[in-house]
């Protein structure tokens, strides 16, 4: 009996994903537990392991295919002793199967298929089974670069895909040649197809701006004391290097504990108020951004936060974060201080209610008790979902945060 490999749902909300890479080719033996493919979702790449063993009979979804629906058949495995005839009927079934319903609970990986039809199909569609002409070197290079040969145009004899085609595609990832302007007067442009991450950013942030009534609160924080303490802490050991951002994460968490009304999320059923401060931190990665989470940051020390952030940022840039590491935070921090940005307003990261936009600390004139002085000042702007957090609560939260930032020793209390 043939075994179907279905598109798994890697998170409860996942409806579709990109088949990033096949680790097995047609004809390869598969043992239970073998990694057979990589699926790229909104924000990470996950490996798909086989549950059952067998031999890859046919791959139905080519590498690099976008928007593969959850539960769609990716490939068909043959069990021991089965030959291609079993395959044809299974593939025909796959072709005739109704569109998969992404709402039904998805298997976590490969799943045994229902009994395949025993009589051979009259016409076995050649769906995706067509041969791709490519040089051996082109195949090797494409596999190394994670490129789908089916998406490339061959420039060799009779359209054969050769080294130069793969190299060109690898040099310009997912780029099509300069397109002709579609509107008269439009300048020439390069059309870059969306990655799964880019689509996720577009979808979530559009949803955020369209459905969340944002309002913004801005406050200046003097950080000379904070910098002094940071300097002193970092001077004690070479085993850690605490950044201003690490301290801001810690203080945001502490302030959320002090003002729990800001640690919130809107839902149709009711307003959620969280018990722990799970701080999502925006990290720029190639092709977009991702928000890994420091969970229970209020209970963690600066050293722990700092080391955890380094690990998360490193793996985020490699696309190696697990979904639970970047979904489900309660509050977000976005820091553009390192780019010299003085202040900005961030788009709320739904379903959270608040995001803090942190600017660069810089020496500015300050007036204290009628006297002009100089202090290092960092401007923070809180974007707030007015559905669950009102202006006064937001202001109270910012005041608590400012107090922590300006007298960091109070963390000790």
């Amino acid at each position, binding site marked *: 009996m043939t075994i179907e490999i279905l598109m798994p749902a890697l998170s409860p909300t996942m409806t579709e994903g990109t088949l990033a890479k096949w680790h097995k080719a047609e004809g390869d033996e598969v043992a239970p537990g073998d990694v057979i493919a990589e699926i790229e979702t909104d924000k990470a790449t996950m490996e798909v392991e086989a549950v059952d063993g067998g031999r890859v009979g046919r791959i139905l979804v080519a590498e690099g295919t976008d928007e593969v629906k959850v539960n769609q058949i990716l490939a068909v495995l043959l069990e021991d002793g089965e030959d291609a005839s079993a395959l044809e009927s299974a593939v025909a079934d796959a072709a005739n199967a109704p569109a998969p319903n992404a709402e039904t609970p998805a298997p976590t990986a490969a799943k045994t298929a229902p009994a395949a039809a025993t009589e051979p199909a009259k016409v076995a569609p050649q769906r995706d089974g067509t041969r791709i002409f490519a*040089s*051996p070197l082109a195949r090797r290079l494409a596999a*190394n670069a994670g490129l789908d040969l089916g998406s490339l145009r061959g420039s060799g*004899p*009779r*359209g054969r895909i050769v*080294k130069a085609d793969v190299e060109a595609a690898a040099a310009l990832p997912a780029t099509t040649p300069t397109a002709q302007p579609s509107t008269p007067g439009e300048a020439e442009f390069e059309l870059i197809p969306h990655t799964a991450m880019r689509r996720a950013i577009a979808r979530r942030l559009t949803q955020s701006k369209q459905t969340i009534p944002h309002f913004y609160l801005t406050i200046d924080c003097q950080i000379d004391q904070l910098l002094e303490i940071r300097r002193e802490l970092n001077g004690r050991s070479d085993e850690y290097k605490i950044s201003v951002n690490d301290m801001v994460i810690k203080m945001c968490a502490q302030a959320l504990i002090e003002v729990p009304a800001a640690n919130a999320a809107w839902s149709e059923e009711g307003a959620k108020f969280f018990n722990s401060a799970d701080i999502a931190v925006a990290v720029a990665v190639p092709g977009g951004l991702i928000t890994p989470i420091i969970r229970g940051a209020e209970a963690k020390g600066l050293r722990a936060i700092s080391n955890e952030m380094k690990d998360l940022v490193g793996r985020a840039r490699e696309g190696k974060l697990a979904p639970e590491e970047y979904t489900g935070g309660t509050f977000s921090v976005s820091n553009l201080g390192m780019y010299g940005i003085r202040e900005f307003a961030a788009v709320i990261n739904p379903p959270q209610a608040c995001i803090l936009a942190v600017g660069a600390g810089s020496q500015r004139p300050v007036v204290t008790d009628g006297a002009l002085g100089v202090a290092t000042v960092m401007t923070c702007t809180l974007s707030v979902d007015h559905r669950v957090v009102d202006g006064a609560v937001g202001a109270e939260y910012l005041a608590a945060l400012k107090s922590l930032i300006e007298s960091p020793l109070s963390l000790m209390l």
Partner: protein
Amino acid sequence: MSENKFDVVIVGGGPGGYVAAIRAAQLGLKTTVVEAKHLGGICLNWGCIPTKALLRCSEINNLLHNLDSFGFSAENITFDITKVVQRSRSVANQLSGGVQHLLKKNKVEVFDGWGRLGGAGKVAVEKDGKLVADLEAKHVILATGARARELPGLEADGKRVWTYMEAMVPESLPASLLVVGSGAIGVEFASFYRNLGSEVTVVEVLDRVLPVEDEEISLFAAKAFEKQGMTLMTSAQVKTLKSGPKGVTATIEAAGKTTDLTVERVIMAVGIVGNVEDIGLEGTKVAVDRGHIVINEWCETGETGVYAIGDVVGPPWLAHKASHEGVICIEKIAGVNDVRPLDISNIPGCTYCHPQVASVGLTEQAAKDAGHKVKVGRFPFAGNGKAVAMGDTEGMVKTVFDADTGELLGAHMIGAEVTEMIQGYGIAKTLETTESELLQTVFAHPTISETMHESVLNAYGRTIHY
């Protein structure tokens, strides 16, 4: 003169020009070739072919002097250099006649004379100082070839100081010979004369003979040549040549020391330069750089409708490169699909010295310089059954792969028959095979070609027979 209107006029009937003409005719283009001297060019008349005829004779001489190892004996083995040269000339003549026949068969008209660009789409043909035809064509291909490079002060006189031309038609065998330059032309003549019995000295300005080959192959060749009794002087330069009653005295500078060497004959083989003079380039947009016409990947010059192919556009100076450029140029003109620019790294090069040398692609050093992490395989002929049976155990095959992708970057061979065997790697490279296909290819036994397989096996730590 409507009959003098063509789609394509090709100036030069060498291996670039005549092959381009035949391909053009096949594609239905009305084509003509203008040739001033011999159809077939240098290759057929004064290069590749007649030298192979000569080298065949020196090979036979070697064999005859080595009969004892095969259980034969013969006495008074002699040869007549005049007959050796005659044979070489008749081979060249036969093939030149063949080209004439092929062009006729393909209805390519041949104009006998000197072709010169004369304005847009025009070529004037001159014979003995008189204009014999004015040709008009949409496309003009310059395939005028190249000639021996001359060094100032060391010019060939054609009597005692030869170029390849005179070296090919000796009246007698010189007792002593100095070959200046150890590229393919230099070592082929050195081999020919040494194997017939001349005392041969080769002077090379670079630090090794056959300097374009992989260093290991160069060193292997040098050992073999020295074993045959050749004197090799590398990192050495001939400063002056003086003709005297006893011959030519060369002043050679090496490692800061100067030595004099008196020889009967000198062969100058210090490279070649393109024939770019007096072909009407003046006033056109055709650019010339260091003696060679500048072209793009489709053999187009800076002047619309003017193309150039072969030796006149620069290295590698190989007949098969010229022919292939001719085909690419014509197919592009005719709008054939799937035309691809020439990839120099897929052009094999062969040198017919003894032992033979053949290579394709990057040397190990060039691969490293290009940033490749390499896997290198080697296999000696001594480990090959057929080579032992034939008594040809002097040789080796070296293969260079990209360690990350398995791409065959280069193959370098020395030994018997390697000039025939190199095509195997040429096909492999053109088809972009990786080590995997080469490892899986079944090589026939017993053949010397099995060394090609073993070299690949060796690169991946799987040598069987050594």
